[in-house]
């Protein structure tokens, strides 16, 4: 159980994030969440979760961007004290390394882990809500 994350290569330049978000807005695509990583050497990566990953890819590629599609784990984390720590404790106790994480809409958190299916199973076993692609397109 996973959702699609799109990673876009970006030069570290004025207006780049605006250009991409405006492009998606014009295509009627809703951005559900995003994270930006910066290399410090003139480029960065924008990770974006949208309600329509196929059209997002098409729109970006049409404009000449390089886009990488990746499956990631998405979990609803209770908006309360210790909510995130509780989720991470499950990963930690099963020796699952989190490469990246960021929050998106509706108290959802995206995780990069090596084995998504195993991680999803564990979380569900602990009573947590794991989100699939269909859900992310419809919320």
């Amino acid at each position, binding site marked *: 159980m996973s959702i699609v994350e799109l990673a876009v*290569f970006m030069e570290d330049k004025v207006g780049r994030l605006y250009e991409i978000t405006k492009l998606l807005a014009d295509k009627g695509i809703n951005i559900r969440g995003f994270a930006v990583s910066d290399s410090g050497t003139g480029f960065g990566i924008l990770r974006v979760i949208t309600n329509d990953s196929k059209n997002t890819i098409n729109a970006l590629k049409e404009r000449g961007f390089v886009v990488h599609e990746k499956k990631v784990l998405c979990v609803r984390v209770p908006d309360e004290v210790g909510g995130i720590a509780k989720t991470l404790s499950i990963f930690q106790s099963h020796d699952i390394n989190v*490469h990246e994480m960021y929050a998106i809409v509706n108290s959802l958190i995206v995780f990069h882990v090596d084995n998504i299916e195993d991680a999803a199973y564990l979380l569900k076993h602990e009573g947590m809500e794991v989100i699939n692609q269909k859900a992310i397109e419809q919320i």
Partner: protein
Amino acid sequence: MIWQEEFECMSLDKLRDLQQKRLIELVKRVWDKVPFYKKLFNEKGVSPADIKSIDDIVKLPFTVKTDLRDNYPFGLFTCPVNEVNEIHASSGTTGKPTVVAYTKNDIKLWSVVMGRSIAMAGAQRGDIIQNAYGYGLFTGGLGVHYGALELGLPVLPMSSGNTQKQLQLMHDFNTTIITCTPSYALFMAEEAMDRGIDPRKSPLRIGILGAEPWSQQMRDKIEELWNITALDIYGLSEIIGPGVAQECPGKDGLHVFADHFYPEIIDPRTGDPVEEGEDGELVFTTLTKEALPLIRYRTGDITSITYDKCNACGRTLPRISKLKGRTDDMLIVRGINVFPSQIESVLLDIKGAQPHYQLVIDRKHSLDTLEVQVEVNEDIFSDEIKKLEDLQQHIQREIEAVLSLKVDVSLVEPRSLSRSMGKAKRVIDNRNI
């Protein structure tokens, strides 16, 4: 000072006679000793018997840089490698260096022509030379060094870089002649000013600057900043290194030491000689070099030539104009030859996919900078910053290893590099030269 007046001021008739005698001997020598030349002459249907006067030189075939590379490392030598006295090598276009060699007599020749150059620039007894050309496989440092020894002038073998020490010793030792690239001369002046030193108050009086193209404006700036006479020196390793041609203080062209290096100017498209004074490709035949003589070697440099006697210094040696460009895509960055194809081959080795790239050359704080912009395409894109940074560093290391030159590698978006007529514009040279 004219170091060898009998050669530098000889009548054109006498010069022609000397060139002719030397050419005839040279052609026999390479025919006998270098299988490459015998084959090349045969292909052109010419043999030593056809060369009876200096004008017959046009019957001979051209040689090009690729010939040196194809016969790497010692295939064009006239003698076994253990009989030469010194070997130099510059970075090559395919990773293979261009190898040049000198016998003991060649080193003597190099010393003499470099000695003439330094003298022509105005050196006198009492001068001290600060040599800031790179020592090592690059011919600049040792060439100037030998010339200084030949003249009997003190020389500081500084090599390039270490600017603080350059400035300190210049001041403490009262050096009067600086030899380096023009961009380094500017850089040193700016460094001096940053440290609160007025370069105009330095003991320097002459700069012998070369190994890269530079303009009249740059000369004006260097002369103004340092309060010196800045003169152009020309040379290339294949012919001898520095000391092929030199400006006198008249600054009206560079005097070619034509008794040793026979110059021709040709139309680069047809190979035919152009009229005196017209622009074309500079071609040299090394009339006296022993270890690695070259016949009608195409330098790729665009210039013109005049045989008029120099009004300023009285030398009769022909003069070439300051270089006007290149026939190929070679760039000279900090005195180092850079071909875009070298960078192409590095990129091709990375994941087998050759991304688009662009070279941006600039002059920052008077030093040439080379930025290699590489387009990130599907093949090389990773969604991990770390992997992209590794790629960036990998490309940088590989290019630096091939070019022996520090470069900056930037990863850029695919659409960001300008293309015209579907073909990428490979080089943007922002230097004002």
